[in-house]
Structures are given as structure tokens and as C-alpha cells.
């Protein structure tokens, strides 16, 4: 399995994604430069966190026009997996890979802390190693993470099981206090209709080792590896 990590100007979680994949998952990873048109044969594409183009105008608005994004979109259209984390999630929404938008946190401040997420669906290639209703601890670090979409979109996401992670309290309950940014319906992560693009505000690549606070993000990477292995096997 080969992972392509996209490097935009202003990406700053690219190295963290690299270490998570190489040191903790034991897979191969390459960086893909935003000005290139080359995914270097990556099976999985990661759109990492950071502040592409300084988040100027709107987070993700400028990055989505980077040359490499044409390849990322084509890769996604082929049904190949894309993991879009934090700023990557914002870029994916701007690029139309995922529905909705991520707006300024309602309290208007950046927030960095460990949060609890409830796994809402394990019928995705990103979450097969979790169990439904499992509560995991993963950090968030963002200023614009308030997931927003129109009513129809929300109904569709819910109805088709495309809401993958929700902010909850330690006991697994969806509460206002557990929501770090006032995102609609406490949504922390969603998949697209085809199930191959996951966008999430929390950082699974920062939760790969108890030494740095949590290893609850590792099963996500392992789920992806499983699914890719199954494809090769098939």
C-alpha cells in the first residue's frame, strides 16, 4: 500500500501524516507537490491539515485550484480512497468532493484539545476496525470546523449512513458542551456517497501513540490498509 500525502503551500500536518503512515502503520508514503500532476501511484491520498494559502479568503478556497487537485478529483472519481483531515476536509468541501462547508467556530476562537468521538458507522473502508457506538479520543485543532449544510443534504447524510463521526461526551452522548465548534448535529466526519472520501475535522494522525496522548486514530489507518489489501486480493 502506498500513501500519497499532498503538500500545499501552508500544509503543516503533512509530516505528521507521513510519520503516522510510515512509523505507525508501517506502510509506504510519498509527498505529492501541489504544483505537480503526479500522484506517484498512490493507492490512498491524504489531504493533510494545516493552513493552505494561509486560509486566506476561506479555508481551502484557493488550494482546491492547485494543479494536483485535478488528479485527486480523478482519483476519487475512480473510487479510490481519499482521507481529508482538518484543512484537507475544508479543501475537499470546496472542491466538491464532499457536500457542505466548514465555517468559523461559533465561539470565534481556535480550539485545540482532545475530544471524544462516537463512531457512527463501521460500514466504511475507514472504520471497519472500530465498532458502532465506540467512543474514541482524538484531538481537534482548528478555527473553522463548524460543519454546515442545508437540510436536504443533512437528511441524506444521516439517511444513508454517511455521518461517520460525531462529537460526544466521554459517555458517548451527543451534547452541546461536547461540540467544540457548534457543527450541525455534532458532525465531526462524513463520507461521500460512494464511500471513498472521508472528511473529518479531528486529527487521527495525531492519535497514533499513547506517548502523545492517544492511539485511537490507528484503527482508522488499519481499516484503510485492510480495505486496500482486500482490493488487491480480489
Amino acid at each position, binding site marked *: 500500500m502506498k500513501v500519497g500525502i499532498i503538500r500545499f503551500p501552508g500544509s503543516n500536518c503533512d509530516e505528521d501524516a507521513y510519520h503516522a503512515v510510515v512509523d505507525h502503520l508501517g506502510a509506504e508514503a510519498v509527498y505529492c507537490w501541489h504544483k505537480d500532476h503526479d500522484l506517484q501511484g498512490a493507492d490512498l491520498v491524504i489531504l493533510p491539515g494545516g493552513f493552505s494559502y494561509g486560509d486566506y479568503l*476561506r479555508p481551502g478556497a*484557493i488550494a482546491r485550484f492547485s494543479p494536483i487537485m485535478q488528479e485527486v478529483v480523478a482519483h476519487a472519481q475512480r473510487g479510490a480512497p481519499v482521507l481529508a483531515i482538518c484543512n484537507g476536509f475544508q479543501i475537499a468541501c470546496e472542491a466538491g468532493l464532499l457536500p457542505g*462547508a466548514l*465555517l468559523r467556530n461559533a465561539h*470565534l476562537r481556535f480550539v485545540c484539545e482532545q475530544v471524544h468521538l462516537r463512531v457512527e458507522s463501521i460500514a466504511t473502508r475507514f472504520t471497519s476496525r472500530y465498532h458502532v457506538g465506540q467512543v474514541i479520543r482524538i484531538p481537534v485543532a482548528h478555527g473553522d470546523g463548524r460543519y*454546515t449544510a*442545508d437540510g436536504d443534504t443533512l437528511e441524506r447524510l444521516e439517511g444513508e449512513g454517511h455521518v461517520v463521526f460525531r462529537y460526544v461526551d466521554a459517555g458517548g452522548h451527543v451534547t452541546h458542551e461536547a461540540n467544540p465548534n457548534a457543527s450541525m448535529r455534532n458532525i465531526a466526519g462524513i463520507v461521500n456517497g460512494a464511500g471513498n472520501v472521508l472528511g473529518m475535522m479531528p486529527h487521527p494522525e495525531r492519535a497514533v501513540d499513547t506517548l502523545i496522548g492517544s492511539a485511537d486514530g490507528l484503527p482508522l489507518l488499519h481499516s484503510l490498509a485492510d480495505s486496500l489489501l482486500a482490493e488487491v486480493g480480489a
Partner: protein
Amino acid sequence: MTRFRVAIHIVPRRGLLDPQGKAVSDALHSLGFAAVGDVRVGRHLVLDTDAESAEAARASVQRMCEQLLANPVTEDFHIAAVESA
């Protein structure tokens, strides 16, 4: 070719939560501006561009808004003024 200065307003779509607007309105109240009601906070862009005519400038800025400047999911835009710069 003439240089035009174009003003654009980009505002959060009505019905969406506008926490900045709410924060500003609360702050104005606590400063004693009790008569203030709703406040909406958006962006004001001023850009210079060369074009054959004011209409051409407006048309080009319209495309910029649709492609980049406004988010079609959450924002509305309005080209407020086109003046020769």
C-alpha cells in the same frame, strides 16, 4: 483598456448562523447601543482590474465571484460598484 475599481460584498446566506454578527450585536448592546438589532458580518473586497468597458469588468468580476470569491454553499455575493480607477 481602462482600469476599473470594483467593490464586492460577500455575505453569509440568510438563515445561517452568523456568530460574528451576533458577537458584534451583543458587544454593541453592552456598549450602550441599545437600538441596534440584527448585525451581519461579511467581506468587502475592492479589486482593480483592466477591461474594455464597465460591463466587461462587471462580467469578469461576476465570474471571479462564482469561481472563487464566494462559497456557493454558504454565501451570497453582490457587485456593489464598478468605477474607473
